[in-house]
């Protein structure tokens, strides 16, 4: 039995005023990923079975490094936004939902940082 009024219970549970921003960010990253992912797929097709020297030379190119960094940043932003919606739709336990979302966010940032670092290390002649 709760003595709180319906309005009191509803307050703070409604719109966080973040929905439009989330929706727009998902679309903008999607548009950016169209050329980036097409470029990436073609590169993987060409270099998938190449040896170390060939791949290393390819990754040394400034254009490739910049595109890869952009791809990784955009991709993980887009992936987090998408995974967030999936979790919010299917995980209803509040604790599990919040901890899963936090874990996914940490993983996305970690993987993006690792990938960008590896790319730059090759680019700057590691």
């Amino acid at each position: 039995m709760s003595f709180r009024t319906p309005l009191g219970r509803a307050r703070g549970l409604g719109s966080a005023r973040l929905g439009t921003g989330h929706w727009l960010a998902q679309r903008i990253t999607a548009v950016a990923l169209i050329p980036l992912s097409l470029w990436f797929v073609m590169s993987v097709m060409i270099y998938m079975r190449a040896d170390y020297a060939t791949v290393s030379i390819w990754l040394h190119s400034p254009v490739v490094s910049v595109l890869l960094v952009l791809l990784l940043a955009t991709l993980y932003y887009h992936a987090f936004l998408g995974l967030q919606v999936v979790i919010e739709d299917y995980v209803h336990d509040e604790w599990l939902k919040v901890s899963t979302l936090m874990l996914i966010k940490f993983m996305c940032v970690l993987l993006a940082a690792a990938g960008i670092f590896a790319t730059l290390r090759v680019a700057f002649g590691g």
Partner: protein
Amino acid sequence: MATDNRPLSPHIGIYRWQISMVMSILHRLTGVWLSLGTVALIYWLIAVAAGPDAYAAAHTLFGSWFGQILMWTWAFSLFYHLCNGIRHLFWDAGQGFEIRTFYISGYGVWIISTVLTVLAILFVYMHGSPP
């Protein structure tokens, strides 16, 4: 939740399966699968940065039958998610909701992503040196 025991709309159990549901579910599944696939990409980039030995290990792993199968599931997932994502962007712009257009674009996504996957496989195995 503010209010419990509200009436719910019929749940998925009572619906007949149709292309719109299958494609929507597959859009999410391919998205999740691609997110997992990015781990392989990061592993590959780290392997290149770590030097020839680490790269050789990654090369063997991706070149194995298991690695190849994973790569092709990710290739199909990416083509599907890309094509269906473009379809979603048209809907967001208010286009393509007529039933006929909806079905044509839906089957189109299946055909294009399958054809692109097959072309990618043919290209990779016919072009360049074996691992």
